[in-house]
C-alpha cells in the first residue's frame, strides 16, 4: 500500500518538473516541491484506499480518537519535532538515534501542506502552488484565489501552528481547521475529492510544547523555527494564543499558550 502512495508522491514531482521548471522556468524550493508531493499523497489516499502520510484510513472522514496512539505516517514524527526550521531542507546526516534529519523536514512540510489544503481550497491549493509559487514569500499571492483570506495567508505559519494545538476541537473557524468531525469535500476540475479530519492528539506523541522553564534554558536556536511554549499540552477547552508577526524575514515564531 505504501508503494501506491510513493508512486503518487513521485508522480507529483514529474508533473511539477514540467509545470514549474519547464513551462514556467521556475526554480522551486525543495521544501515546497516535497510539500506538494506529500499533499498529493494525502489528497489521493482516500481514492486509493491507503493511509497515506496521515497514517490512518477512515470510512467517515473522522480523525481517530485522542489516545489512539497512531505511529504510522508523518504526523507522529512531526509532533516530536514541531520546532524544525521552516523552509529549510535538512538533508544529509542523522541524529544519534539514526534518524536522518530530513525526516523532520518531510514531517513538518506534510503537516503544513495538510493545513493549507484543508483551509484554503483543497486540490486547487496544489495547482496554485505548483504553478505560481517558488518559495514561502509567494504563498499569499498564489493562494489568494478566494475572497477574504489575505490576512490568514500572510499569517499562515502561526495559524497553522495554532490549528495543530486546536485540532481536537471540531468547531474552529476557517483558517484554524484541521478537524470538522468528517470529510472536507472539494470539487475541482470535474472531480470530487475528500480529505479526512486530522487530530494531532490521535498520535502516539502529542505536539511537543516547551514549558516556560524549558524555554528559558534555550540559549541559541536555529532560524525560521516555530516554538510552542505553554503550561499545558492540551488546550481544547480554553485557549489564548499570541504569536509573533510572521514575515518572510522573521527568524523565530513563538506561540504562547495561556
Amino acid at each position, binding site marked *: 500500500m505504501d508503494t501506491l502512495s510513493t508512486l503518487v508522491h513521485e508522480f507529483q*514531482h514529474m508533473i*511539477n518538473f514540467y509545470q514549474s*521548471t*519547464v513551462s514556467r*522556468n521556475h*526554480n*522551486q*524550493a*525543495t*521544501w515546497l*516541491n*516535497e510539500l506538494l*508531493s506529500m499533499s498529493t499523497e494525502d489528497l489521493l489516499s482516500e481514492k486509493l484506499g491507503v493511509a497515506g502520510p496521515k497514517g490512518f484510513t477512515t470510512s467517515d472522514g473522522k480523525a481517530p480518537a485522542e489516545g489512539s496512539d497512531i505511529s504510522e505516517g508523518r504526523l507522529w514524527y512531526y509532533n*516530536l*519535532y514541531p*520546532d*524544525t*526550521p521552516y*523552509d*529549510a*531542507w*535538512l*538533508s*544529509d*546526516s542523522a*541524529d*544519534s*538515534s*539514526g*534518524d536522518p*534529519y*530530513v525526516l*523532520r523536514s518531510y514531517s513538518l512540510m506534510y503537516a503544513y501542506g495538510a493545513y493549507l489544503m484543508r483551509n484554503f481550497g483543497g486540490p486547487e491549493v496544489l495547482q496554485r502552488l505548483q504553478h505560481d509559487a517558488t*518559495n*514561502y514569500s509567494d504563498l499569499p499571492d498564489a493562494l489568494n484565489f478566494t475572497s477574504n483570506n489575505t490576512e490568514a495567508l500572510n499569517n499562515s505559519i502561526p495559524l497553522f501552528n495554532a490549528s495543530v494545538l486546536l485540532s481536537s476541537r471540531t468547531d474552529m473557524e476557517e483558517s484554524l481547521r484541521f478537524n470538522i468531525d468528517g470529510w472536507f469535500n472539494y470539487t475541482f476540475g470535474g472531480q470530487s475529492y475528500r480529505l479526512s479530519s486530522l487530530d494531532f492528539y490521535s498520535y502516539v506523541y502529542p505536539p*511537543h510544547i516547551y514549558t516556560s522553564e524549558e524555554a528559558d534554558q534555550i540559549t*541559541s*536556536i*536555529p*532560524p*525560521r523555527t516555530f516554538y510552542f511554549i505553554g503550561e499545558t499540552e492540551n488546550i481544547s477547552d480554553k485557549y489564548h494564543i499570541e504569536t509573533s508577526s510572521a514575515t*518572510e524575514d522573521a527568524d523565530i515564531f513563538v506561540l504562547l499558550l495561556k
Partner: protein
Amino acid sequence: MHKMRLVSLLLIIALPLFSGGRRDNNESVNLTLRGKLILTGNEPHTFLMLVCEDNRKYQLTGDLLSEMKQAAPGQTVLVYGFLSEENPGKPLTNSFKLPLFKVNSWDADKINKNLLPERKPGS
C-alpha cells in the same frame, strides 16, 4: 627581407602568448557574488542555487556543496569562486541550464544541527 625576418621572428615569439599561454576566461576570473541561497529540485536530485539581487541565478558547484546545504535558507550570502564550464551531467542542468559557479569559499550562517533537539524515545 631583413624586415620580413624580424616580423616573422616577432610573430613566432609572440604566438604562445595568444595560444598555448591563453588562460580560460571563465575559470581564471575570480568573482565574488552576493545573493540568496535556495535549495531547489526534489529529493534526491536537489541542488543549491544562488539568486543575486538583480535576479541572475547560478547553480553552485564544488567540494563545499555538502557543507553549504546546511546553510540557513533564504539568507543573503557571499560566495567566492569562478564561472565554470564544468557540467555535472544531471538531466536538469543539461536541459535547463543555469550558469555554473564553482565555489572556492563562502560565508553564511549554518544551521547548527547540534542545536536541534533529540527527543525520540529510546534514542
